[in-house]
């Protein structure tokens, strides 16, 4: 049995800086075999958890990216029609009875497994990541409920396929739509917010090797201040890391106003935000404690 502090260590070894609540949720979801529903703003490392977990457990990550209109054929399985047709053409002059032919084209080798079916027929207990579940529609959500509770999928031509290993499920949501109570009840819930200064600093130092410690501190401080401004799209950790990597690649060891202005596009992805931040840049710099050379 894995202990709580082992989970923390495991995540840490994979380069995922975490806090107590994240570790606790991951631990409980592993121990109790419960899906973990992770919500939070964009770019705070929700998807990353699943990747790290798969790595740490030394198993495969199976990913189902949700989108509006996602339906069972894209999530479960589909028959390989082209191949079925070709096969029928090949055996056309065969004297096999029709039932025989039907049987052969509806067997495993003509079945294209989509993520959910892949996950339940996998040889080793995989991590199943259902990404951005809020983008799919309600019909799919209720369909998912069925799979998540029974762990079996029925293919009319073959029969019911039962899970060989119940996968470790991670669901992520950006809260563009409220998820149903029924789905929430089946999962453990975790909310990941933007990190505090200490955590973000650690992440930057860890993820961008060779970065100047002073620069990492300045970047983190600047990002923390930036998130207090009301922006159209608040930058997440992903942006911080991109920025840190960019500045590091430019061999810069401290922030100044011209560099920030030049590289702001890495952090802000909306023109209104860019304009707003440019206007209040010197004020921001002062708050961060970064002094302009000029």
């Amino acid at each position, binding site marked *: *049995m894995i202990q*709580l502090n082992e989970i923390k260590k495991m995540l840490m070894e994979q380069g995922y800086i975490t806090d*107590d*609540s994240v570790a*606790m*949720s991951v*631990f*409980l979801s592993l*121990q*109790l075999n*419960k899906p973990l529903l992770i*919500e939070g703003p964009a770019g705070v490392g929700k998807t990353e958890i699943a990747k790290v977990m798969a790595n740490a457990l030394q198993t495969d990550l199976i990913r189902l990216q949700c*989108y*509006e*209109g*996602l*339906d069972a054929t894209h999530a479960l399985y*589909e*028959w390989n*029609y*082209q191949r*079925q*047709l070709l096969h*029928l*053409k090949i055996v*056309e002059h065969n004297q096999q009875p*029709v039932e025989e*032919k*039907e049987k052969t*084209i509806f067997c495993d080798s003509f079945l294209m497994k989509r993520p959910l079916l892949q996950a339940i027929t996998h040889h080793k207990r995989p991590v199943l990541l259902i990404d951005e579940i809020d983008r799919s529609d*309600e019909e799919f959500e209720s369909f998912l409920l069925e799979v998540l509770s029974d762990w079996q999928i029925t293919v009319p031509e073959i029969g019911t396929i039962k899970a060989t290993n119940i996968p470790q499920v991670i669901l992520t949501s950006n*809260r563009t739509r409220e998820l149903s*109570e029924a789905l*929430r*009840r089946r*999962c*453990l*819930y*975790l*909310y990941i917010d933007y990190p505090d200064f200490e955590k973000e600093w650690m992440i930057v130092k860890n993820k961008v090797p060779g970065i100047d410690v002073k620069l990492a501190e300045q970047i983190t401080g600047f990002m923390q201040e930036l998130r207090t401004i009301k922006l159209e799209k608040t930058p997440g950790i992903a942006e911080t890391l991109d920025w840190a990597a960019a500045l590091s690649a430019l061999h810069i060891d401290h922030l100044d106003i011209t560099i920030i202005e030049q590289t702001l596009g890495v952090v802000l992805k909306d023109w209104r935000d860019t304009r707003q931040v440019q206007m209040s840049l010197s004020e921001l710099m002062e708050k961060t404690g970064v002094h302009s050379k000029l």
Partner: protein
Amino acid sequence: MITRQTSLSKNIVQFCRFLRQKGFGVTIEEESLSLQALQIIDYNNNDIFRQTLKATLCHNKSQLDEFDDLFHEYWKELEKAVDAKTKECPKNKTAFQQQASYKALKKWLHGNRNKETEETATYSTQENLSKRDFSTIPEDEVDELMQTIKFIAKRLAAKKNRRYEFSSKTEMPDLRKTLRKNLRRGGELLDIIHRRPKRNRLKLILLCDVSRSMELYSAFLIQFMYAFQQVYRRMETFVFSTSLKRVTWLLKQKNFSEAMQKLGTENNGWSGGTRIGESLDVFIKEYGKKLIDSKTIVVILSDGWDTGNIDLIKTNMEFIHAKSKKLIWLNPLAGFEDYKPHVSAMKAALPFIDVFASVHNVESLKRLGRWL
């Protein structure tokens, strides 16, 4: 599942009850889950104990935010009870407090409402029985309105679903069905079955306030209702003041002046008082359960000035919100710059509204079209 009755597990059951009172939907399954979780963690550590319960019992962000305070409140209360050696459990106390605060809230709501009655003379509780003449309403603006509504209706109705449905026209072939159908001939493809993208067919329900306080906008309202009904087929229109009336078929008349004439003779409730809650109640009881589903958008056009029962508004709005796809409230007053929804009816309704916007003329309607 769990048979061992320790005082800790009893406490957790009680804590779950306490959470339920605070509006957490804790089910029995989750209770047992949290107890299971305690078996695998070190619950002597207070922090870990709290986090375990938090991870198993919370289901959304607001619950996570509230949880820590409630947790401390409960265990503090419990400690007190143990010290005093009284068996008084904290839940009774909080229940009482809640009741008191509820009463205060109710009182405050009532008080607020009465005050408004004194302050404004623009609306009354009396039903206005005089017949209205709608023939003065100009028709020329209706065309422009219809253009705008056509645009909105298109956005509402013609949203392509990414699923497919059977099509009798030659479009995309549906391989799955084609293969299935032709198997009986040994796989020779003779019939090809086609499919096309499914369309989201949204239904629309328009509830329009025609009380006296809305009189200023009545010309616009009628044009709006008429144009919408003309353009959009899957739609039902109701008007309400002190009572509710279905006017769908009246507005389906092709001839505008004829429709207006009929509307004038048919409706007695124009420019009366407003009882939003009661009207909504009638609407739900008589039509709502049949008409509203998850593919229905409900639009309410009202200024929110109300003389009726506020609680009724709340429960009915909650019902509509839960059942429909979207609940849109269009308030002509919201167009004023310093408008804030202070009216008590409006306040009660706000938490259940998905889109709150101002519509009082064609311009504002165009703006709404961009929002939807």
